[in-house]
């Protein structure tokens, strides 16, 4: 009953592939996703630069916020996970955290309502960058013995190596980047679909059956889920950055 009603209010995609279409609005294939990416990049730059551009003894109000958040990433994520060498990898972790945070928060930003990270290309690109980084760090630090140590865990009996080496090869060099990308992508798209379902149900009840009870229930769910999605957006940016730090750490201390 809801679906035909819904189809009169909004355009209902014929199948889920509609979610993965990329119609371009500007030359060079620039579409809404790319424009929002530029916006997030600009927002990250301004957020990290403007409030602290003039050094002051007592930072401004925004400066305190920026310093607290940057210190959270620098100490809470990078230093606590990687250890004393963490300063070398801040160039990756700090901008990545804020970029992902802005991209994720677009999901519940009024007038945008679109999580840019729910397009697979962006998590996949970042996961590829993370993969290159942790493999490069391992190879630079340990040479070719990085591959050997990451494939052969200490204390494994010789006979089991036939089984262990393919598993470790898959889990370290293939499953890691894929799960990193899929985790972010699937979380954001699941939240987006949930929000869309509840708001569209509200809209269709509001238009076609304007009883308060009928549309108040999905509306209440939609509001609760919006609050939940703020939490998810922050959490996923945090998890992505934390796992990057964990992977870099495992490349640095590959022996154990």
């Amino acid at each position, binding site marked *: 009953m809801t679906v035909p009603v819904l189809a009169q209010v909004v355009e209902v995609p014929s199948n889920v592939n509609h*979610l993965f279409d990329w119609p371009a609005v500007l030359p060079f294939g620039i579409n809404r996703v790319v424009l929002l990416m530029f916006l997030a990049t600009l927002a990250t730059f301004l957020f990290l630069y403007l409030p602290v551009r003039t050094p002051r003894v007592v930072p401004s109000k925004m400066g305190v916020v920026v310093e607290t958040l940057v210190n959270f990433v620098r100490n809470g994520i990078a230093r606590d996970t990687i250890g004393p060498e963490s300063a070398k990898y801040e160039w990756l972790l700090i901008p990545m955290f804020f970029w992902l945070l802005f991209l994720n928060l677009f999901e519940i930003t009024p007038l945008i309502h679109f999580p840019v990270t729910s397009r697979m290309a962006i998590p996949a690109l970042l996961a590829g960058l993370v993969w290159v980084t942790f493999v490069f760090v391992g190879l630079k630090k340990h040479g070719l013995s990085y591959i050997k140590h990451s494939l052969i865990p200490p204390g494994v009996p010789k006979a089991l190596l036939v089984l262990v080496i393919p598993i470790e090869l898959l889990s370290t060099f293939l499953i890691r980047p894929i799960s990193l990308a899929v985790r972010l992508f699937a979380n954001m798209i699941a939240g987006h679909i949930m929000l869309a379902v509840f708001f569209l149900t509200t809209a269709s009840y509001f238009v076609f059956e304007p009883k308060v009870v009928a549309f108040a229930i999905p509306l209440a769910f939609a509001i609760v889920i919006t609050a939940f999605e703020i939490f998810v957006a922050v959490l996923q940016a945090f998890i992505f950055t934390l796992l990057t730090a964990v992977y870099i750490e495992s490349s640095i201390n590959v022996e154990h």
Partner: protein
Amino acid sequence: MEADAAALIGAGLAYGLAAIGPGVGIGIVVGNAVQAMVRQPEMAGQVRTTMFLGIAFTEALALFGLLLFFILFGAGG
């Protein structure tokens, strides 16, 4: 037609079955994390970070199921 129906049934089953294990797993992770935090409140911060890490690893399996749902739903719908 039958192949489409099979793909759609498979899509539903894929996500439903993929959600069972991680559901139990996340319960175990969070339950034990709460226990650890209650026993040693001074370690709560570190336990929380590790808990999120554990949740992320466990949750990945359910999300693979969700991805499979999209793929099969696209094949059938």
